[in-house]
C-alpha cells in the first residue's frame, strides 16, 4: 500500500485545481489522504508520481478519480430510527396541501444509497410520484453506477437487515435481487428524481427545498467549509424546511451556523431551518 506524504497531497490538490478547476483543499486531510491512497491502489498506480502523471496526461481519468474520491454511502436504511422518524413523525403528519410543489434535495449523491432509501420510504407511503427530488452528483461514472443499481452483495445484505429494523411494508428482496456476488435494484425508483451535475460550489443548487438529506457528508470536509456548505443548504431551503445530518454531525455548538438551524429531533440529528 502506497503511503502519501503531505507534499504528495499538496501536489495532487495543486494539479487537480490547475487542470480541472476542482478544489480539493477543503477536504479534511486525514480522510482525503486515505481516499487518495485508495485511488492509487484501486488503479494499480504503485506510486504518487504515477497518479500525478495520470491526472496530467489523461483528461478522461479525472471523472473516475472523482467517482473514487467521494466516500460512497455506507448502506441503505443506515440508522433505521431516522427513517422511521421521517415516515411516522414527518411525512405522515404533512397535510395534503403541504405536498404541493414539494421539493427534496440530496446534495451529495455519491453511490445512491440515501437516495434509494428515500425513494423506498416515499414509495411505501405512496408519495413518490407526488414529490420532486433533486440529486446532486459530481462525476458521470458515479451517476452511471447509481442508475445501474448494482451494489456489492455485502452492502445490500446489511441494508436488508436495516430495512427489517425499519419495519418496511415489503420484503427487501422486492427491491433488490441478489446473486452470489452482487445485488441489483429491480424497480425503477427514480421517475421523480432529477440528477444535477455540479461541483462543490453548488452553483446549481435547487431553490425552495423543503427537505434536505445530507447524512455523513459534512464529515469529509474542514470545519470552515462545513460552514460554507451549511450556508448553501440554508439558502436553498424554504423556511421551516427539514435537514437530516449524520448522527455524529452536530451543528448546534458551531458559532457560525447555529443561527441557521434549530434542533428538531436532536437524537436523530434532525434540524429545522430557521425562518427569515
Amino acid at each position, binding site marked *: 500500500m502506497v503511503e502519501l506524504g503531505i507534499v504528495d497531497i499538496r501536489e495532487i490538490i495543486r494539479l487537480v485545481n490547475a487542470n480541472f478547476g476542482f478544489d480539493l483543499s477543503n477536504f*479534511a486531510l486525514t*480522510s482525503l489522504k486515505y481516499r487518495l491512497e485508495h485511488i492509487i491502489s484501486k488503479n494499480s498506480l504503485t506510486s504518487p508520481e504515477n497518479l500525478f502523471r495520470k491526472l496530467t496526461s489523461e483528461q478522461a481519468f479525472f471523472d473516475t478519480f472523482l467517482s473514487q474520491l467521494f466516500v460512497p454511502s*455506507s448502506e441503505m436504511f443506515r*440508522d433505521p430510527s431516522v427513517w422511521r422518524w421521517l415516515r411516522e413523525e414527518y411525512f405522515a403528519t404533512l397535510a395534503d396541501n403541504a405536498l404541493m410543489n414539494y421539493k427534496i434535495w440530496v446534495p451529495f449523491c455519491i453511490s445512491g444509497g440515501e437516495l434509494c432509501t428515500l425513494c423506498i420510504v416515499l414509495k411505501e407511503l405512496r408519495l413518490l410520484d407526488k414529490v420532486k427530488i433533486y440529486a446532486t452528483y459530481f462525476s458521470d461514472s458515479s451517476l452511471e453506477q447509481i442508475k445501474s443499481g448494482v451494489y456489492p452483495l455485502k452492502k445490500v445484505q446489511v441494508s436488508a437487515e436495516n430495512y427489517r429494523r425499519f419495519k418496511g411494508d415489503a420484503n427487501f428482496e422486492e427491491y433488490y435481487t441478489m446473486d452470489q456476488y452482487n445485488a441489483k435494484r429491480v424497480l425503477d425508483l427514480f421517475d421523480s428524481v432529477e440528477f444535477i451535475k455540479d461541483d462543490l460550489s453548488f452553483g446549481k443548487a435547487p431553490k425552495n427545498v423543503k427537505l434536505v438529506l445530507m447524512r455523513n457528508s459534512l464529515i469529509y470536509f474542514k470545519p470552515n467549509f462545513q460552514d460554507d456548505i451549511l450556508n448553501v443548504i440554508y439558502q436553498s431551503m424554504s423556511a421551516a424546511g427539514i435537514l437530516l445530518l449524520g448522527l455524529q454531525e452536530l451543528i448546534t455548538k458551531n458559532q457560525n451556523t447555529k443561527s441557521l438551524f434549530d434542533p428538531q429531533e436532536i437524537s436523530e440529528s434532525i434540524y429545522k431551518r430557521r425562518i427569515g
Partner: protein
Amino acid sequence: MNYKAVIIGGSAGSFQIVTRILNSLNPNFPLPVLLCLHRLKHVRSGFVEALSLKSNIPISEPYDKDQLKPGNAYLAPANYHMFVELANRIALSTDEPVNHSRPSIDLSFVTAANAYRDKLIGIILSGANRDGAFGLKKVVDNGGLSIVQDPQESEVKTMPTSALQLTKVDYVYTTDQIIRFLQKL
C-alpha cells in the same frame, strides 16, 4: 515524558479491562485517551454510558471535528471510523469497513500515529480479529510507544498475538501493569 495521547484498541470483550483502566486513571490524567473498540454497528447507545459509570475521567462518543482534550476519553462511535485529524481534532468517516470492522482499530491507530508520531502510546488489548496489528506497527514505525496485553491473560488472543507477530513491541503487560504504567504518566 512528553506524550500527547494514548490510544487503546480491543474488541467488545475488552469491556471489563477498559472499565478497570478508566476506573484507575487519575482524574487529572494528562493526556486524551482514544478508545477504538469493536462493537455492534446497529446498537447506538449503552456502551459509552456503561463505560462512564466507573470512569474517573469524562468519556464521550465524539462528534466530527471535536477537539481532543487532556483528561478526556473518546470512544469511537458505532458504525463510524474514528480518525485523528490535524490540529488535535477527531474526524469521523463512514468509509468501507477495514478487517470487517467499522470502527477499525487499524485506521484509528494509523491516523493517530501520523498525527502524534513519537508522542503516542498505543495499547492493544484482547480481541478476536487481527485488526489493530498493522496500526500498532505504524505507532512503532513512527517512534511511538507500544504495549500489548499479555496473551496469557487475554481471553481472546488473536488480536494481541497478531500484533506481537507483526511488530517488536516495547512492552507485553498484564492489565495491572498497564494500569500502573498509565498511573505514572
